[in-house]
C-alpha cells in the first residue's frame, strides 16, 4: 500500500467537521508553524520539501513564495485557486468536499509564511455546494481561534474569504482569476508584471492550487526532509490523481510519486485495469491540456525505460515522445475510443473557453474545431491534417496566456502520434461514421532504441 499524506484520514467519519479533524491531529501543523517556527522557517521547510505546484505547471512552491515582493506598508495576499475546470481533473473537489479543514489549515500556514492577512479561495461556480462546506469550516476555525485577530496570541491576523466564479475555465489562469476576483471580466493580464509583484488590487500576491496548499500541512508536520522520501527525484511527496475513462475504478487516488504508470493503471489498489478486459489504446496523463500518448509510449519511454508517475518521467522525451503530469487528470482510453473524436471534443472545449483577447486563440480555436468536425463527420480532406498542424503551430507560443498552448498541444499530439487514424477518417469517410479505427498498432512494442554511442 502506498503511504498517504493528504487522504490518510479521509475515510474517518465526520472528518469534515472541526472536532473530528482536530481530534485526529488536525491543526497541529498550524500550531507548530505559528507558535514555534516563524514565517522564515516555514518557507525554509517548504523549500526543503521540494513541493511543486499541483495546479498544472509544477513550479516549485517555495521558490514562488520567495519571489513575493515585500514593499513597506503594502498588503500581501494569498489566493487559493479552486477553479478546477480542466477536463479530467477533479481532485481539488475531493479535498474541499471531504477534508475542508486540511485546506483551511494549509491556508493559515501559508498566509503566515507569506505575511498575508487576507486569503481568498476562488472556486468554480459549478461546485455550487462546496462554498457552504468551506464557509462552515471557516466559521468553525474562526470560532476556535484559528482565524481572526491575533491568532494563538502570536499577533498574526488572518481572514479567509470564499469567492465563487461564474463558470469560466479561463478564470483558473492566475491573472484572469485575479481580475475576476476584483469583479472584472476574467481576461488574463499581460505579464509582466507578475502577481508576485502586482497581483490582487495591484498588491503582491501568491496564487496556489488547493492541493499545493493542503500539502503544506504534512510538510510542516513531518518536515521537508521526510516529505522528500515520498517521491522520486524532483517529484517529491504524494500527488492526487483523478483517474477516469475506461478503467474499472475511476476516482481520486493519492499516490507516492514512485510507482509506474503501468502499476497505476493495472493494480487493484488504483485503477484496477481497463474496463471489460479491453486493451489500452491511449492515455492523457495530466488533464486535457497535456499531450495524449499511445499505449506503447505511455508505459515505456522512447528510451525503453519504464514510465513512472512523476513529473520527470511523464515528460521524458519532451513533446516528441512524452507528455506531462499536469494537474493529475488521468484520462484512459481503450481500444474502442476514437482519437479524432476525442480531439474534437477538446477542441470544442478550448474554443468555448477562450476569453477572446488575443487573435490567435480567439480565431484559431474555432477554426481547429471546425476542421476537426469535418474530419470526424466524413467531410475532411487529406490537406486538412496539415492545415490543423499549421493552425496549432501558429497559436502555440504566440498568445497572452497558456490557454492558447493548451488548445494547441492536444491537437499537435493527436496528429503526431495518431496521424494514420486521421488519414483513415479522411480516406474512409463512410466507414468512419460507423466504426472506429481501433487499437491498430498503438500498443505494439516500439523498436529498441539505438544505443547511444
Amino acid at each position, binding site marked *: 500500500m502506498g503511504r498517504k499524506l493528504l487522504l490518510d484520514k479521509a475515510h474517518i467519519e465526520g472528518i469534515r467537521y472541526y472536532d473530528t479533524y482536530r481530534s485526529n491531529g488536525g491543526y497541529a501543523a498550524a500550531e507548530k508553524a505559528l507558535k514555534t517556527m516563524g514565517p522564515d522557517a516555514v518557507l525554509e521547510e517548504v523549500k526543503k520539501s521540494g513541493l511543486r505546484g499541483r495546479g498544472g505547471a509544477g513550479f516549485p512552491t517555495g521558490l514562488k513564495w520567495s519571489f513575493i515582493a515585500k514593499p513597506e506598508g503594502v498588503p500581501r495576499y494569498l489566493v487559493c485557486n479552486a477553479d478546477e475546470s480542466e477536463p479530467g481533473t477533479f481532485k481539488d473537489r475531493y479535498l474541499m468536499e471531504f477534508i475542508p479543514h486540511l485546506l483551511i489549515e494549509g491556508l493559515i500556514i501559508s498566509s503566515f509564511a507569506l505575511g498575508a492577512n487576507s486569503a481568498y479561495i476562488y472556486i468554480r461556480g459549478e461546485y455550487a455546494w462546496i462554498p457552504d462546506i468551506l464557509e462552515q469550516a471557516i466559521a468553525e476555525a474562526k470560532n476556535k481561534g484559528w482565524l481572526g485577530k491575533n491568532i494563538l496570541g502570536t499577533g498574526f491576523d488572518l481572514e479567509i474569504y470564499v469567492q465563487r466564479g461564474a463558470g*469560466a475555465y*479561463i478564470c483558473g489562469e492566475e491573472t484572469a482569476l485575479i481580475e475576476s476576483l476584483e469583479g472584472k*471580466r476574467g481576461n488574463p493580464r*499581460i505579464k509582466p508584471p507578475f502577481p508576485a509583484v502586482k497581483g490582487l488590487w495591484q498588491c503582491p500576491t501568491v496564487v496556489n492550487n488547493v492541493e499545493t496548499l493542503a500539502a503544506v500541512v504534512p510538510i510542516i508536520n513531518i518536515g521537508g526532509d521526510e516529505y522528500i522520501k515520498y517521491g522520486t527525484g524532483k517529484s517529491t511527496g504524494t500527488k492526487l490523481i483523478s483517474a477516469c475513462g475506461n478503467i474499472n475504478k475511476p476516482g481520486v487516488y493519492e499516490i507516492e510519486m514512485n510507482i509506474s504508470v503501468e502499476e497505476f493503471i493495472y493494480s487493484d489498489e488504483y485503477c484496477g485495469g481497463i474496463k471489460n478486459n479491453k486493451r489500452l489504446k491511449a492515455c492523457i496523463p495530466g488533464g486535457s491540456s497535456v499531450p495524449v500518448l499511445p499505449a506503447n509510449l505511455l508505459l515505456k519511454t522512447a528510451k525503453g525505460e519504464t514510465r513512472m508517475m512523476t513529473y520527470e518521467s511523464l515528460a521524458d522525451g519532451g513533446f516528441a515522445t512524452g507528455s506531462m503530469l499536469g494537474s493529475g487528470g488521468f484520462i484512459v482510453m481503450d481500444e474502442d475510443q476514437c482519437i479524432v473524436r476525442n480531439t474534437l471534443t477538446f477542441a470544442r472545449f478550448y*474554443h*468555448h*473557453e*477562450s*476569453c*477572446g*483577447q*488575443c*487573435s*490567435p486563440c*480567439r*480565431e*484559431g*480555436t*474555432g*477554426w481547429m474545431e*471546425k476542421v476537426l468536425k469535418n474530419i470526424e463527420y466524413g467531410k475532411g480532406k487529406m490537406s486538412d491534417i496539415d*492545415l490543423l498542424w499549421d493552425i496549432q503551430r*501558429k497559436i502555440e*507560443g*504566440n*498568445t*497572452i496566456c497558456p490557454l492558447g498552448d493548451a488548445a494547441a498541444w492536444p491537437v499537435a499530439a493527436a496528429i503526431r502520434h495518431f496521424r494514420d487514424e486521421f488519414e483513415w477518417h479522411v480516406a474512409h469517410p463512410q466507414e468512419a461514421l460507423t466504426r472506429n479505427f481501433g487499437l491498430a498498432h498503438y500498443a505494439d512494442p516500439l523498436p529498441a532504441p539505438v544505443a547511444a554511442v
Partner: protein
Amino acid sequence: MLLSSFAGKNYIKMAEEKKLFKVKIDNISVEVEPGTTILNAARQIGGEIVPPAMCYYSKLQGSGGKCRTCLVKVSKGSDADPRPMPKLVASCRTTVMDGMEVSNITSPEVLEARKGVVEFLLLNHPLDCPVCDQAGECHLQDLSYEHGADSTRYEFKRRTFDKVDLGDKIKLHMTRCILCYRCVYTADQLTEKREHGILGRGDASEISTYISQSLDNDFIGNVIDVCPVGALTDQTFRFKNRVWFLKPVDAHRDCENPKCCGKTVLWMRGNEVFRVTARKDKYGEVEAFICDTCRFDKKDVKDWIIEGPRKIERHSVISQGHYVNTVKPKDALVEVLDGRQPKLLFNIHSESQVNRPDIDLSKIHGPAHSDDFKK
C-alpha cells in the same frame, strides 16, 4: 481626467541621472530610456523595422498585447543576461533591457508568426472593403497588404453580428471588429461614465454598450478615430464619400470645451466639410483627442480657422488625389504621341453627371443615388 496626461511617455519616471539603454533592432542600434518598450524603441529608429501595431495605442493606458501583430524575437535578453527569450514577445508590451537584441523583419520566424496573426485577424472578417467607410484608412487593409497571404484557407461561414447604432452619431459594425479593445479603453479613460465594454467571450465576444446607452458623453466620438478598422464609423459621414476623394486640411477653432484641443482635420470637398476627425500621426494615433461638438456639429467651414493642407503619408491612398509632396508621374502618352493629346472619346464625369459640385453630397440623407443628380 485631464487629456494632457495621456500624451507622451508618461510611464517613465526617471531618476536624476539618465542612463540610456543600448538596444539593437534588426541590427540597427538605438539608445532609449529605461522603461521604453521594444515597439517604441523601434519607432525611434523608424522605417520598415517598426513592427505593425493593431491594438497598442500610446495614448491609452493598458492598451496593447492583444492582437499579436507586433510579435518580435528577442535573440539576446540583455548584456547582464544574454539568453534569448524562449518565445516571441509582444513588442508593444515588452520593455527593453540594456544590450537587448531584437529581430523583427530579419527573423523568418517572426514573419511567419505575423502572417499567421494576419490570417487569424482576417479569418472572420467580412472583407467588405468596397462598401466600408474605413477603406483607404484601414489599418487592417494595410496590414493584410503588407504582411498577409494572398488568399484564405478558411472554408467556413464567417461570424456575423447585426449592426447597432450607438446613439445617433456612431455606428457599430461588430462583424468588422478585431477586438483590439482600443475603444473600450477610450470610453473608459476619456468619458465620465463607463457604458461601453465587451460582452461574451472567445469569438463570440462583442462590443456592447450598457443596456443600449446612447453614449452621449462629450468625448465618446473618439472611439471612431481609435478604431483601426471600420467597426466604429461616424454616422454623420457614413456612405457620404470615399476618404481618398476628400481633401484633408488642418483646422482649429476656439472650442468651448476646456478639455478639447480644438485642433482637427477637416475632410473637405470644395467648400463642404464632410467630416471632422482628430489629427493622426504616422502610426495612426491621434495627436490629441477632440470633443463631440467639434467632431459632429461643426460641419461648416465658417466654424473653423483653416491652417492648410494636411500632410498625408505618400504611400497612403488618401494622398493619391493630392498636392503636397507628391511627384506627378510623367505622362508617357504625350511623349509617345509626339506631343499630341490623346483623343477624348467621352468624358465619363459629364456623361454620368456625377461630378456636379452644385449638389452638396454631404446634405443628402444616406448614400447618394443616381436620382440625386437628375434634378
